[in-house]
């Protein structure tokens, strides 16, 4: 019997024959925390008297969730992290570098890696064929110290994609549609594995968006094979030597298979207050929006900003609708400036935030008031996430966000293309 992507990676990293349901101890290739989970990770590390890191070169701290620090308390947390990084000699990505998951994709993740991060969206690196998953501070602190952790090898749901995305439809619509159909706990304790001939039509940026939201269906990982598109991306990032092919065996065993035709997808929106509460954008026409937010580890990449800028170029945001854009990394920001996207966005009335998580989790840079509605390109719309528990968060693609910014109400981007 062949193996799924998850079984292959965990077999290699545990040095055994890992099969769904087994409990294994696996070597970890990268462990990290960010500025809202890092302080507790450091304190757990210290409370265990672990003294030193297993390997400082595979240990990283990121400053993205509240960056630059918006208040004294978080400034103190940043200071604690900088001191720890200096003493321990680990990698540090300070304020302005970008969102941890984007930086992991750009600079650190490799096919066949096992990656753990004290952040649920660590699954993003599954786009590069890495078994990447979110954990809490205690788990990550122990990985910092030992360089390994335990896993239950997950069963896998195979997602077979075919065809090509139509104009105005983005990878975000694919993953929202998927979560809407299987539910917010549709893949709990399981792996999502993507395959099918349609994968050749999904760029690495698309795959990052899809893998990023695997956790919104409860999945442990969202895995893509490592193929020509992975190789081209790593080459562009000047990391060609990190490429290794990775494919699932033809006779691997899957819990179930779901077929998705990319051509049949339409712009999709998750309504408050759950990610699986999906509807088509056109069905929500007339829903007034106070703030549009484009960015995050889900949709803050160059391709996302390009999609928004192309729609907004030469147009203005609706006077009642604020437009906030946060590039996912410094590299994205520089590339977006170079391509003229930032100019188009600012001329359309956007405010540009520093690379980081920005408004995504209600700490700064676009906190919502009671009764306000936001159309966000992020991955989560839970009650209270972006500020007031009486605010309403809708999730959509960068194209849907740009179209919505123009009209001031939820708009199918195909109406403004």
């Amino acid at each position, binding site marked *: 019997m062949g193996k799924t992507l998850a079984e292959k990676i965990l077999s290699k990293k545990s040095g055994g024959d890992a099969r769904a349901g087994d409990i294994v101890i696996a070597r970890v290739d990268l462990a990290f925390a960010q500025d809202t989970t890092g302080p507790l990770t450091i304190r757990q590390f210290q409370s265990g008297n672990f003294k030193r890191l297993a390997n400082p070169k595979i240990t990283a701290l990121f400053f993205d969730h509240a960056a630059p620090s918006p208040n004294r308390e978080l400034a103190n947390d940043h200071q604690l992290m900088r001191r720890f990084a200096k003493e321990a000699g680990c990698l540090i990505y300070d304020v302005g570098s970008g969102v941890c998951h984007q930086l992991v994709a750009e600079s650190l993740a490799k096919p066949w890696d096992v990656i753990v991060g004290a952040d649920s969206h660590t699954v993003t690196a599954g786009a590069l064929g890495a078994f990447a998953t979110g954990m809490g501070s205690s*788990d990550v*602190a122990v990985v910092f110290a030992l360089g390994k952790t335990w896993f239950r090898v997950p069963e896998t749901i195979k997602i077979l994609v075919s065809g090509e995305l139509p104009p105005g439809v983005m990878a975000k619509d694919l993953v929202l549609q998927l979560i809407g159909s299987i539910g917010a706990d549709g893949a709990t304790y399981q792996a999502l594995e993507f395959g099918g001939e349609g994968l050749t039509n999904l760029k690495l940026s698309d795959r990052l968006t899809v893998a990023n939201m695997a956790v919104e269906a409860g999945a442990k990982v969202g895995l893509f094979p490592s193929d020509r598109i992975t190789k081209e991306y790593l080459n562009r990032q000047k990391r060609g030597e990190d490429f290794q092919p990775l494919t699932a065996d033809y006779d691997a065993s899957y819990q179930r298979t779901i077929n998705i035709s990319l051509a049949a997808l339409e712009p999709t929106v998750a309504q408050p207050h759950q990610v699986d509460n999906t509807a088509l954008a056109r069905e929500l026409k007339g829903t007034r929006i106070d703030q549009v937010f484009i960015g995050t580890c889900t949709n803050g990449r160059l391709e996302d900003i390009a999609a928004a800028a192309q729609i907004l170029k030469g147009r203005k945001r609706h006077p009642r609708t604020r437009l906030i854009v946060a590039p996912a990394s410094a590299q994205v920001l520089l590339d977006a400036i170079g391509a003229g996207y930032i100019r188009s966005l600012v001329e359309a009335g956007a405010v540009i935030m520093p690379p980081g998580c920005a408004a995504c989790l209600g700490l700064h840079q676009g906190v919502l008031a009671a009764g306000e509605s936001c159309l966000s390109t992020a991955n989560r719309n839970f009650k209270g996430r972006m500020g007031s528990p009486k605010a309403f968060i809708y999730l959509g693609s960068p194209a849907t966000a740009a179209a919505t910014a123009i009209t001031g109400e939820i708009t199918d981007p195909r109406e403004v293309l």
Partner: protein
Amino acid sequence: MLKGRAFKFGNNISTDHIIPGRYAYLRSNLPELAKHVMEDADPDFAAKVTKGDFIVGGSNFGLGSSREHAPLVIKMAGVNAILAKSVARIFFRNAINLGLPVLICDTDGIDDGDKLEVDMAGGTIYDKTSGQKFSFSCLPEIMLDILNKGGLVPYIQKYGDFRL
């Protein structure tokens, strides 16, 4: 035997219900952070909960963020254990890693305010108010071991490594 009162919640209680992201600035000030436990699910929970009580959820309890502060503030509130039909995986590991029991069982028959008695070794829950008895599924051995050592950090301190 654990004894206490049930606080019943619905399905899909997220980590933002348990401890909203907007309070991240209090994460290094745990006594202040803990005052907001379950705030967006029940604003009065922190005032009502007493030591030994149980949180009873539906399906997919604890979905969302990896913040370990979610089970941490529940533990700080004195909650004995979380009972739910299913629990999101990161929250599940985080709770066990802090020594907070998570019991997977059918919670439909338990109502808010019911008096519960939980026999951890026997794997049973007795609802004194309704007179019903429930059983809960056992944890994988490694999780049970971590729980019995009081959490992951004490477990590693004792063994120096993971044990299968």
